[in-house]
């Protein structure tokens, strides 16, 4: 190979690698809803930056995007989502959206808390919605949207705590009074799921043993599966996973070893096909509602910063339908879940949110 040829090839490979970087920062963009029908009703453009779980996690990030899509339907908002492959992508993604003139930007996930706090003052004309983010003194254009995950998980705990005692419910229920929680990363929103689940289970079944394990990742499916296998070996017959896509690995383990599953964030009966035969319910978190409401505020000009909490009372969290288990779960258990829900809403029961409060 002569020198010129080699230079040319080096240039080519360099270009290919640069192009691959561009592919790495892939983004998802939807066509505007209906180009054939009426004009968009609003000039507002809304966008979101995912956390590292990315779109397609079939739960958290997808729900935020569903909220944007609801806004697109309702207000004709132009929408866009940028995926973050790693934490270092957060800032450039926000910069890119803000300089492209988006009016409201959602930063999805607890891990983006500091980034939101840093970037919101830089773009005072842009409204920021930080999902799962708490701020002590946010600037006026930054809203922290928090969920009482512990309240939804509490109901899941009540259900699991009673179901593990009821061997007639399903042949996967064993004699051990043991259930399991599997978390992604050990961060406050996931801890709230864990603590709520444990509190709920103990409220109806004081002797229940709740195994709780963390994967340390939201996308390591194989790790999620190993955690579920370890807990099933210990006698757990119901596994509640709040672990993003790592939770899908837990579904595989439950299918293999014959255990029941409780999903998280979205109604995972709808989003994870293979889970259908084993999924009791999901502890849902209406991120879509929160996103949709905030876009609505921006459209109507009523947006204010500050902290908003979405709990059972605000319909921000709750349980998904029982689907295939509708007929298997006894009326007593359903009543207990409904009663727990009513108790939480009217304040009779306060669900702990941290391990220390448990």
């Amino acid at each position: 190979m002569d020198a010129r040829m080699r230079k040319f090839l080096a240039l080519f490979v360099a270009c290919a690698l640069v192009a691959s970087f561009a592919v790495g920062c892939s983004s998802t963009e939807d066509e505007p809803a209906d180009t054939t029908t009426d004009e968009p009703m609003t000039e507002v453009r809304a966008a979101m930056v995912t956390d590292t779980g990315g779109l397609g996690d079939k739960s958290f990030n997808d729900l935020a995007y569903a909220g944007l899509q609801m806004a697109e339907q309702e207000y004709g908002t132009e929408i866009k989502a940028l995926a973050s492959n790693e934490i270092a992508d957060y800032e450039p993604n926000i910069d890119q959206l803000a300089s492209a003139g988006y009016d409201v930007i959602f930063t999805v996930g607890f891990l983006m808390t500091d980034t939101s706090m840093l970037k919101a003052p830089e773009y005072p004309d842009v409204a920021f919605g930080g999902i799962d983010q708490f701020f002590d003194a946010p600037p006026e254009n930054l809203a922290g949207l928090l969920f009482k995950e512990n309240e939804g998980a509490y109901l899941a705990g009540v259900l699991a705590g009673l179901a593990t005692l009821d061997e007639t419910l399903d042949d996967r229920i064993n004699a051990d009074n043991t259930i399991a929680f599997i978390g992604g990363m050990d961060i406050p929103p996931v801890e709230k799921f864990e603590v709520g689940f444990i509190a709920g289970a103990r409220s109806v079944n004081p002797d229940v043993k709740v195994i709780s394990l963390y994967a340390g990742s939201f996308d390591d499916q194989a790790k999620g599966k190993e955690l579920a296998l370890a807990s099933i070996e210990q006698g757990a017959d119901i596994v509640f996973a709040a672990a993003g896509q790592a939770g899908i690995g837990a579904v595989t383990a439950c299918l293999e070893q014959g255990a029941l599953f409780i999903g998280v964030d979205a109604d995972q009966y709808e989003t994870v096909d293979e889970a259908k035969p084993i999924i009791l319910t999901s502890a849902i978190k209406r991120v879509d509602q929160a996103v949709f409401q905030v876009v609505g505020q921006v459209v109507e000009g009523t947006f204010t910063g500050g902290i908003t909490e979405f709990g059972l009372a605000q319909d921000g969290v709750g349980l998904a339908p029982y689907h295939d288990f509708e007929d298997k779960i006894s009326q007593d258990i359903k009543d207990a879940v409904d009663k727990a829900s009513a108790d939480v809403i009217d304040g009779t029961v306060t669900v702990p949110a941290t391990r220390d409060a448990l």
Partner: protein
Amino acid sequence: MLSDIITPDLFAAAVRIATPLALAAIGGTICERSGIVNIALEGMMLVGAFAGVVGALATGSAWFGVLCAILAGALLALIHAFASINLRTDQVVSGTAINILALGLTGFFMEVIYGHPGTTDSAPRLMPVFNISGPTEGVLGTIWTWINGVFLSFTPIVYIAIFIAIFGQWALFHTRWGLRLRALGEHPRAADTVGISVVRGRYSAVLMSGALGGLAGANLTLEQVGSFTEDMTNGRGFIALAANIFGRWTPGGSYLASLLFGFADALQIKLQLFRDVIKIPSQFFLMLPYVLTVVVLAGVVGRAVAPAAVGKPYEKG
């Protein structure tokens, strides 16, 4: 408490967790023995994991998926081979670029093929090789549970990995292929003077490491979980790189090093079971396998000597 930790599944989990690491680590061994640094194992594993699912979903055959995974890993390795052998670029830079390329490519093709990012549908999987029912009662039952769990509960690639480790160990030190491979990494000029083609030898080694990386990916998706998630390898390629060094650039050593890491990880999971008894944050447990690797690497193994010519581009003449 101890009986909750020391269970058949502890050892079975160790082997399961070790398998993808070991395959990639042996790939790293072969590559570095030929004189080429390969930090792109992570990317090769990721691409293999993805291609495996694509192949299996398209044809309904898990074995065809495995073939796709091996080919995809080798194809990605071809870029590395070309950049490091023909263009003589810095091998670490090329490897890093390939890791990023792999992340981008899998995400991109996921959109193109399945129309959504994140996780694919579930593909057909390879099932455990043996499915023998033994006694379940009494002492005999306990013994059988242990034998079945620790030795007979695995999927095909797990056994293939053990075979590759043993065969590779023998081949590296007792065959002409192994001697030539080692010569390429220690003193390529000497190998060249006796008529061994450095370019061809290194190409085949890099491609082999890619194929093994791809096979490691296939183990993750087509045996362990059944679907592909973006970035699901979660740093396993880099742990494999460490296992290769820790195993002193031998296939057998790589396997044992991976097994140690796998055991530490499985143990970490078991210890987490007692998080409510011993009040220690979960992050501490998650850190254990990595700390153990560092400690063993620094303390027990002693000085590990890399092949002399590793990372140095070879210029004929």
